[in-house]
């Protein structure tokens, strides 16, 4: 009840023995609307109109305060699995109240000692092993039929069908705790006595916060004669104590006695109470304040039914919601419709939000587009200005860039044959001469590239180790021959010297002797003729050499 403002608005239909009492419960008040006697002409139509017009079509909570409600305590369920529990409970309820179509079961919290201890015999364990329930049953009396008819005709939603004593038990506990405050522990037994407008005196007895007993009896309202009223109430209270002794109540047990009454009636009653107890009396408004709620101005604050209506009507979860098939038939379609409406509302809200945010986003984008167009206009003007300036120079900027860049890239890829020939010429010196030289740019003459041999690989590895970058873009072949006037050894020496010089002049190239003078050739057949007038020709003497150079473009 702390979040009073968040509590639901409901119409509470308090079903008494002689009439239906209608309360409109909001966060601020529990307003009595009307009482319609069961025998009233056109009962259903009257209640229907009250529910729709006076109560604004709020969901109704049916709170049964009739005498005809029956309880069977101490109903223990056998130990069954979770899946079977509901079925067993339903069957037990049916057995307990075979003729009462409105039924409910409330699980009772058990003390630790009530559970079977390990090691106890099986029979004893079975007796106390299952959960303990309080069964409740209500016969389908004519007032209920009429009430259901009215609810059905009014088209209002149904919050539930509950029993006033059960739903009031936590209120009694809350009052007991509040009254005890920090000064003492709340009493084990708490007795709440309140008279309703119908004249019925409802007594709700709780033990450790759980409903222990309830009684409803007829008592005349204190119409000026408070002593007579007090005497009647006291008699009923004594009778209740008498019943309580059957449930373990001892005369010396600490008890909270809470009475809703006017101060005058309360004084008269207090004088009569002679049993040891913490007696507290308050008006309905005072009790509501103690519970942290407001019930608004009441015509007679000595009646407790507005307090019950406010307490039960604002509950978000009921202690025992009775299962009434007739009411379910009315309630379920409306609940489904309410769920559909809620989902549609949520969907509408989401779509509205999505549409609104989409619109907002689109408008923002449109605004940004306008801004970007304006910026583009400025940028375009600057761009055009720069292009114009460049055009005024008499040149096509892109053509200049294209021309220069392309020419530069062509130059980078050009084989510098003249420089290469000049370097080779320097390497040859004045003594040596070549028979033939070929220079190929391998980018255009892949087929002319000679096979890689081990020597070249070795040279490449050595050069790489020296930090030189070797490129094989150009391949040069030098063919040389020596006159027969020199020995092959001399020729080989000169070729070896030439190789060294070329390597020195062309450090980024690989230079190797493909064939040296008089080299041993084991791969080809050697043939010739010697004898009269026959001597070794220059070719037979093998005075030819071949040097290859692989290197960069320039």
């Amino acid at each position, binding site marked *: 009840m702390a979040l009073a403002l968040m509590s639901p608005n409901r119409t509470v239909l308090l079903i008494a023995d002689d009439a239906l009492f209608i309360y409109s419960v909001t966060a601020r008040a529990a307003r009595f609307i009307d009482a319609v006697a069961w025998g009233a002409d056109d009962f259903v139509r009257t209640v229907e109109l009250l529910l729709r017009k006076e109560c604004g079509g709020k969901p109704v909570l049916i709170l049964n305060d009739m005498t005809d409600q029956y309880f069977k305590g101490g109903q223990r369920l056998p130990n069954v699995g979770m899946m079977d529990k509901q079925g067993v409970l339903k069957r037990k309820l049916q057995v307990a109240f075979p003729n009462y179509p409105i039924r409910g079961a409330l699980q009772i919290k058990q003390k630790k000692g009530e559970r079977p201890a390990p090691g106890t015999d099986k029979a004893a364990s079975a007796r106390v092993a299952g959960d303990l329930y309080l069964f409740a049953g209500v016969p389908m009396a004519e007032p209920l039929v009429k009430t259901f008819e009215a609810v059905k005709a009014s088209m209002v939603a149904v919050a539930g069908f509950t029993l006033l004593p059960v739903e009031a038990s936590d209120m009694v506990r809350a009052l007991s705790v509040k009254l005890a405050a920090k000064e003492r522990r709340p009493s084990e037994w708490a007795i709440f006595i309140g008279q309703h407008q119908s004249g019925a005196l409802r007594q709700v007895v709780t033990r450790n916060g759980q409903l222990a007993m309830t009684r409803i009896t007829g008592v005349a309202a204190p119409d000026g004669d408070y002593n007579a009223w007090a005497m009647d109430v006291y008699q009923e209270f004594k009778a209740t104590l008498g019943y309580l002794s059957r449930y373990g109540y001892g005369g010396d047990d600490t008890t909270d006695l809470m009475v809703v009454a006017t101060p005058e009636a309360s004084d008269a009653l207090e004088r009569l109470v002679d049993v040891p107890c913490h007696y507290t009396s308050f008006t309905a408004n005072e009790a509501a304040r103690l519970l942290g709620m407001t019930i608004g101005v009441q015509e007679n604050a000595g009646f407790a039914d507005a307090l019950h209506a406010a307490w039960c009507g604002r509950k978000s979860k009921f202690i025992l919601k009775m299962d009434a098939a007739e009411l379910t038939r009315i309630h379920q379609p409306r609940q489904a419709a309410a769920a559909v409406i809620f989902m549609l509302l949520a969907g509408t809200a989401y779509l509205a939000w999505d549409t609104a945010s989409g619109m907002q986003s*689109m408008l923002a984008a449109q605004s940004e587009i306008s801004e970007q167009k304006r910026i583009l206009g400025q940028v375009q003007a600057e761009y055009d200005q720069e292009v114009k300036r460049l055009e005024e120079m008499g040149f096509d900027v892109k053509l200049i860039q*294209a021309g220069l860049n*392309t020419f530069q890239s062509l130059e980078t890829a050009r084989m510098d044959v003249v420089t290469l020939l000049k370097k080779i010429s320097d390497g040859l010196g004045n003594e040596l001469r070549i028979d*033939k030289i070929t220079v190929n740019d391998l980018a255009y003459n892949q087929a002319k590239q000679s096979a890689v041999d081990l020597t070249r690989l070795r040279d490449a590895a050595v050069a790489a180790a020296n930090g030189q970058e070797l490129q094989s873009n150009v391949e040069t072949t030098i063919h040389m021959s020596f006159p027969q006037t020199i020995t092959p050894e001399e020729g080989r020496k000169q070729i070896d010297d030439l190789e060294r010089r070329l390597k020195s002049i062309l450090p980024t190239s690989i230079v190797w002797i493909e064939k040296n003078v008089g080299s041993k050739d084991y791969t080809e057949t050697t043939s010739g003729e010697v004898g009269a007038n026959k001597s070794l020709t220059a070719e037979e003497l093998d005075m030819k050499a071949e040097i290859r150079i692989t290197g960069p473009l320039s």
Partner: protein
Amino acid sequence: MIKLIGAKRLMIILVLAGLCAVLAGVSFGLIKPEQDAAKRQLSALKSDISFKTTETARFRQEMAEIQSEKNTFQSLQSVGFLGEQSRLEARKRIEAIQSYSRVLSARYNIGPGVISNVETATEADQVLMTTEIKIDLDALDDADVYKFISLMENAFIGHVSVTSFELQRVLDLNEVTLRQIGSGIPAVLVKAKLVLNWKTLLSRQQAALIGAGTVAAEGM
């Protein structure tokens, strides 16, 4: 069912369902496409602005560079790098180079022009025309051949690069050849074979007009 839930609830459900449908239609049918279109337009605008801003900055930065590159570009223009490859002009130029380099003869073969796209010229809508020229040279001295090559590379039209070169000594300089030279008979001591690539830039429109075929981008 309607009797149980009531006409009012039914109306509310229908109205809400209708409202949901209308809102969904507006949201997904109208706003979302418009939103996407606006986003695309905005993205295109931003991209355009970015490009123009970058280009403007580049133009400004390159203005000074272009001033200095102007002379180089003019040189390229003057050597005929930007333009078609006139075969007649090429013949005249080879003749002049032959004469100046003193090679005894130069037999040339100018191949067909081949058009290719190059990355550096795409933006200016220019393409590269490449022509292979094969030349067989007869010379008295290999130095004349080198001079011929040097002149081809530096005094020919556009850009010329040697892709293959072969030089062979065909006669030794001895008494016989000296006498031959002395008597005025040209003696061919060396022969050379040259393969060159002749390249110029020309507009795509020019290339289309002269009917040269386009091939894939060249690696150069």
